[in-house]
């Protein structure tokens, strides 16, 4: 097990180099750079001399590969650089955004599981009954509504009309996480419920369930001790995938609820061509996905010991 985890962590190195180099090249395809964006956003007019001085200050006058190598060597020494836009060190700036993102991600996942597991099982058990149709209709609706629209609806009813929760996040304690988390939950729970329903239905039609029923085992016992356990693989896969994207930040929701997280920061950095921040974000995303995949594989192994870790490499 230890060897397997170590191998996966070592794999991070070429992946990180590849991803950061690729994103560095992509960012520089356009003919505008951070200096042009700074000029345009400040509404002022900079002379060619001022622009070239600023480019030199930011190291943008060097060749692309030189810029990349300088950045990489700094990162290896623990220095992620300074933001071109705010002139603040990237590392503390980035780290300050993570708690809000992690808090929102975990709250959303928790709410999603609380809603989707019972709903999915219930819909499967009541297949083709009214409650199944109702749940499926709600799932379709939840999937069809875009996040920004759901968030505006929630704000309208719960913040403006009922005044239960604040519009703006994260300064009113637990109250402020409810609406952004619910926005994310509605879309995720709709997807999860459908998947869980399908998986449970599949399991219910399997021979071991028929056998258990024939032996007179109580339906509820079959459902919770056999079917749900078998469905856990699907749930873990879904959670793994969602966790990756949630921990990368949810720019639209963060922007609407003024949730000061990593997603909004990444979008702002991309718009502003703030390369050091973008690169920090790329590293974070790569680490997140690799680590979550690793955890998912380990959980798979515990849930179903037939799945052997590292099998794909043998």
């Amino acid at each position, binding site marked *: 097990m230890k060897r397997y985890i170590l191998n996966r962590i070592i794999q991070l190195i070429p992946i990180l180099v590849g991803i950061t180099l690729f994103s560095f090249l992509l960012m520089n395809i356009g003919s505008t750079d951070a200096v042009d964006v700074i000029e*345009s*956003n400040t509404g*002022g007019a900079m002379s060619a001399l001022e622009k070239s001085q600023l480019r030199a200050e930011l190291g943008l006058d060097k060749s692309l590969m030189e810029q990349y190598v300088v950045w990489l060597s700094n990162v290896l020494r623990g220095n992620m650089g300074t933001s071109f836009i705010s*002139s603040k060190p990237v590392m503390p700036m980035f780290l300050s955004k993570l708690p809000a993102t992690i808090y929102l991600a975990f709250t959303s996942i928790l709410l999603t599981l609380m809603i989707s597991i019972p709903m999915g099982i219930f819909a499967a058990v009541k297949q083709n009954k009214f409650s199944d149709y109702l749940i499926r209709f709600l799932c379709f609706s939840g999937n069809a509504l875009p996040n920004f629209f759901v968030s505006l609806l929630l704000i309208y009813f719960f*913040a403006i009309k009922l*005044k239960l929760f604040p519009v703006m996040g994260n300064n009113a304690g637990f109250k402020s996480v409810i609406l952004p988390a619910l926005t994310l939950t509605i879309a995720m729970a709709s997807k999860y419920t459908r998947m869980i329903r399908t998986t449970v239905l599949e399991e219910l039609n399997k021979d071991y369930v028929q056998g258990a029923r024939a032996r007179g085992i109580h339906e509820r016992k079959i459902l919770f001790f056999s079917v749900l356990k078998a469905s856990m693989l699907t749930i873990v896969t879904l959670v793994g995938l969602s966790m990756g994207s949630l921990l990368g930040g949810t720019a639209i929701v963060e922007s609407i*609820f*003024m949730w000061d997280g990593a997603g909004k920061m990444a979008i702002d950095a991309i718009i*502003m061509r703030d390369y050091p921040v973008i690169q920090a974000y790329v590293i974070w995303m790569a680490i997140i996905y690799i680590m979550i995949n690793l955890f998912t594989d380990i959980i798979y192994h515990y849930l179903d010991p037939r799945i052997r870790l590292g099998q794909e490499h043998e």
Partner: protein
Amino acid sequence: MKSKHLLKRVSTVLLAVVSIALLVVGCSSSEAKGNSSENQTGEVDTKIAEEKIFTYGDTTFNAENDEANVNPHNGYAGWACIRYGIGETLFKYSDTMALEPWLATEYKNVDENTWMITLKDDVTFSSGRKLDAAAVKACIEDLVAVHKRASGDLKIQEIIADGQVLTIKTTSPVPALMNYLSDPYGCIIDMEAGITEDGNVSGTGPYIATKVETDKGVTLIKNKNYWNGTPKLDTIYVKTISNGDTLTMAMQSGELDGAYGLPYASLPLLSNEPYSISSVATSRSFFGQINYKTEALQDANVRAAIAGAIDKESFTKVLLNGNGTAAVGPFPASFAFGDSTVKAQPYDLEASKDLLSKSGWTDTDGDGYVDKNGEKLTIRWLTYPSRQELPLLAESVQASMKKIGIDVVVNCTANSKDVLTSGDWDIYASAFVCAPTGDPEYFFTTHCLDTSTKNRGGYHNDELEALEKQMSLSFDDAERERLATQMTQILLDDNGFIFASHLKMSIVSGKGVTGLVAHPCDYYVITADLDKN
């Protein structure tokens, strides 16, 4: 057996987590009901009884806008410093954008390169230090040392401090020096108190910043020793809200007492009691620049036809919901050299059609578009989406031009700079603050001369170049205004620039708020007059 235990454990943990979560949600809901007063931020609620608290939402306080803190010597952060009542300048602008004393009582132009400024005697910084010439000298010296735009504008050679009299010597004549010193970067701060790591400063304004958080906001408290009256609010929370819908809904929910930067579409929602809107035309103008490399646009008749076919009134009244004023030139009518002093091509579709036909552009194939030598007249209209007015202007122009037979192909892209570089455009529409310091010279030097960095279309006029040379040496305000009017008229006669509208800046006040008034310069917002009852 093992898996049974595991499942049991998982279910127990899941049940416990669900119960705790439900408990917390339940508690927070009841708590929210209990506290459903106007403000829902915990920090604010507890203080309501004792203090006068004002919460203000603003779209502009962020690093993206080069306002990362309130240090006026950092980029455009001076705007935050002056807007939030932290800092003040030596002179300020009246409602007609004329200079009037603020921290200074008067100035004297000793010779072309020497200015003598007398300071008020009863002003203190929030640090407690008295404002004198030595303090102003230290502040301006730091400004020109670290702020490129300021050092380029002010061209300072030497500053001499003597009691309350400050003498500034410039390396070359700077007729607009007092205007430049009234720019937000000219906020006078106490350099002895210094600039904190988070970019906080000690100014002379009615409020003192106690917490500065980039992209999040500023917390202000009353400056009890303010020299020019008593600030009426105890605490002000300035919150950065970049999303227009969030800003609107935070106003509606009562979380905010005032807001700046609301989308036009939201203003009707807040136009009735208990809200009030203060609006004013600013010098931020929306205009098109002609690309003189495009052969068809080298023809003066074609340029005039285009200028005369843009329905500016309908654009501002209908598409902008009245949140803009139709422009004649770059400066709004509130300026002495503004729109009321110049004339542009009037809106007249028939006249535009005649002008086109005079140049040989007629619809020979009956497809609704004019053509010449078998080629249709197509204009590539380049603009960008970050200013909500620009895509609307593009649509309006597209519809208007169709009426005179010109096919307008709109390219609205965030990558407009790339397209400008490539040259694949005919008219470039953009937004620009044409007179940020109330002086006209800035617009001409940035856009209209051979040396201008933003003269993207290659506009040139010998007479205008000569008049600009005169302006750069003229210290007489009346003369500068006369020259500005003359130069604007040349631009309009050439139709090298087509001005569509001036932005109307709006600030919304919530229930019981007084003293939140929009100003044409756009940077006096929180003042000692601001109150909430």
